[in-house]
């Protein structure tokens, strides 16, 4: 094979080389068969052992049998009670959270491996008191209430900060999120199925995700792709320890001054730049934003939002190849995110890569269409477009979110069903129904950069802080 050969021929040659050798179909199916049989036998055995143990352990078999019958009746009553539709109200979840002291959050990848694990201890009024985040392989942070320890595993160094100065969080102020659930949350389906378990399916707008609520405890067991539980953490979870061979850099007030390594200084500069870069992006200074975001992602390669906004900045600069590159990286890191697909779809469309653009828009469309009925569910599109939300300096209203979503839809698809913020409710209802029908019937998607856009209502004084 040489570089002069046509690419199709080279691919065919490569295909032949890869395809040589025996097929593995039988081996794979054999292994699946064996593992399935082993699993079946294991379950059968453990069930049999359980029954056997029950009878061997009790010397009063008749009494035990009576007990078993009573338990069975109780279980049946319990089952019938659970299988009947329960009248669930979101308020019950808010109430249940009042008794929560610990949160355990786990996010897994497509094959079930833990990508991110967090423990949170809550204090009065739901405030975070202690925290631990383990995002393998590189990131670990532990907060014991006074000190935040950041473990830089690649540098064999632990940096200690005052907890007042540096704090990590899951969703920020949980109270604000619960208030959002109370006000804008919607029950989508009661007694739904969540991985074989009965749970209520609820839309939690600020989470930009659906969550599943346990029918008994009324607490969420999953929010989007994050699993939630509320058990006490293992001993030492919030304890700061220094692994053997690790250096310590103490940045707490009053600590003896030490020489800081250059890389730590770079990281701190990057944090400062991240803040400045977001404001440069919002104020339209794209050259500066690009320069600053580039520095941030160089120092913090896994800072997904910095990478996302860098992609957006390149889009604004008309550097579509770079925008696609950065946004593709983000989608790889964060998994499929509707706002990420939308942003990359625009960049593909500007490049004239219609198929790629269409594929991305199709990923985003279900969420965009749903947002027409549940605007608060599109909060992440807003966040993606306006980093000021990160600091809570700006809070869009439903009308603003809706207008911007209509504009995104017009831009990406070229469709316009006559939605107008000045039109009557009935006319706008017809417009939304038009979008829904268009989507459900697989309507045409045509990027329309000169689409007529709706004016976005002004932010109220209350919303703009």
């Amino acid at each position, binding site marked *: 094979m*040489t570089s002069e050969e046509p*690419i199709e021929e080279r691919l065919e040659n490569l*295909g032949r080389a*890869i395809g040589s*050798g025996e097929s593995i*179909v039988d081996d794979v199916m054999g292994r*699946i068969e064996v*593992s399935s049989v082993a699993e079946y036998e294991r379950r059968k055995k453990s069930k049999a052992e359980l029954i056997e143990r029950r009878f061997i352990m009790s010397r009063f078999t008749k009494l035990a049998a009576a007990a078993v019958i009573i338990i069975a009746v109780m279980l049946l009553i319990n089952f019938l009670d659970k299988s009947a539709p329960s009248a669930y109200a979101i308020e019950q979840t808010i109430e249940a959270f009042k008794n929560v002291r610990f949160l355990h959050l786990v996010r897994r990848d*497509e094959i079930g491996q833990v990508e991110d694990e967090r423990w949170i201890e809550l204090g009065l009024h739901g405030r975070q008191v202690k925290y631990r985040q383990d995002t393998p392989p590189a990131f670990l942070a532990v907060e014991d209430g006074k000190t935040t320890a950041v473990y830089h595993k690649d540098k064999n160094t632990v940096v200690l900060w005052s907890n007042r100065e540096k704090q990590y969080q899951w969703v920020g102020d949980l109270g604000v999120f619960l208030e959002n659930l109370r006000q804008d949350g919607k029950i989508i389906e009661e007694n739904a199925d969540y991985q074989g378990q009965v749970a209520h399916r609820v839309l939690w707008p600020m989470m930009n995700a659906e969550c599943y609520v346990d029918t008994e405890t009324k607490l969420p067991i999953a929010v989007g792709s994050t699993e939630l539980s509320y058990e006490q953490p293992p001993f030492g979870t919030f304890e700061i320890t220094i692994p053997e061979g690790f250096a310590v850099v103490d940045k707490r007030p009053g600590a003896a001054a030490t020489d800081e390594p250059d890389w730590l200084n770079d990281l701190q500069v990057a944090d400062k730049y991240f803040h400045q870069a977001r404001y440069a992006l919002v104020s339209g200074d794209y050259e500066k934003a690009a320069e600053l975001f580039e520095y941030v992602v160089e120092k913090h390669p896994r800072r997904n939002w910095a990478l996302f906004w860098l992609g957006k900045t390149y889009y604004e600069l008309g550097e579509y190849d770079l925008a696609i590159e950065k946004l593709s990286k983000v989608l790889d890191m964060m998994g499929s995110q509707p706002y990420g697909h939308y942003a990359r779809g625009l960049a593909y469309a500007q490049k004239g890569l219609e*198929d790629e653009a269409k594929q991305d828009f199709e990923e985003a469309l279900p969420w965009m269409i749903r947002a027409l009925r549940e605007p608060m569910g599109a909060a992440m599109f807003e966040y993606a477009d306006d980093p000021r939300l990160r600091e809570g300096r700006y809070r869009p209203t439903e009308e603003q979110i809706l207008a911007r979503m209509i504009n995104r839809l017009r831009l990406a698809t070229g469709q316009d069903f006559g939605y107008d913020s000045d039109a009557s409710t009935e006319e706008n209802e017809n417009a939304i129904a038009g979008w829904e029908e268009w989507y459900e019937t697989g309507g045409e998607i045509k990027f329309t950069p000169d689409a007529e856009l709706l004016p976005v209502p002004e932010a109220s004084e209350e919303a703009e802080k």
Partner: protein
Amino acid sequence: MQSDAELVKACLNGEREAFAELVKRYEHPVRAVALDVLRDYHSAADVSQDAFVRSYKNLPELRKADAFGPWLMKITRRCALDAAQRGLRETALDSATNVTAESKDGQLDEYKQRLLGAVVKLPEGEKQVVMLRYFGGHSVKDVAEIVGRSVGTVTKQLSRAHRRLRNLLKESER
């Protein structure tokens, strides 16, 4: 020809033959991904098996049935990286003796390895159709049915992929 999505749904309904069909369909693309990481036929063959078994066990976790191909590729890559870390080659040489090697030491020649490296860098959609077409040996029509897209779309994707591959190879040959 049944689409991936149809086969995945059949698997989830307990039809194990449907999974055998998916293995047949993707065994060479999967081997290619493993080969790109491990650069060794024997290890790649072992890892391919692991990837299929793991995907079978995790099939209920797959959120979108039509995304089976790209999902399987990710699993394969993960399995291959794990194997590379474990230094699988030592054991693989003993266990997989029937795998035909392209060359004596079970590795691709430099040109092919470079081309393979370029293929795995393609965007997901293009990578899937290239692998099914050239490594899986499927016709364009079959590829379209497998991925649930039109023949026109697949043809366009292939032609874009060809162009992209030419550029990637040019860059790597500089």
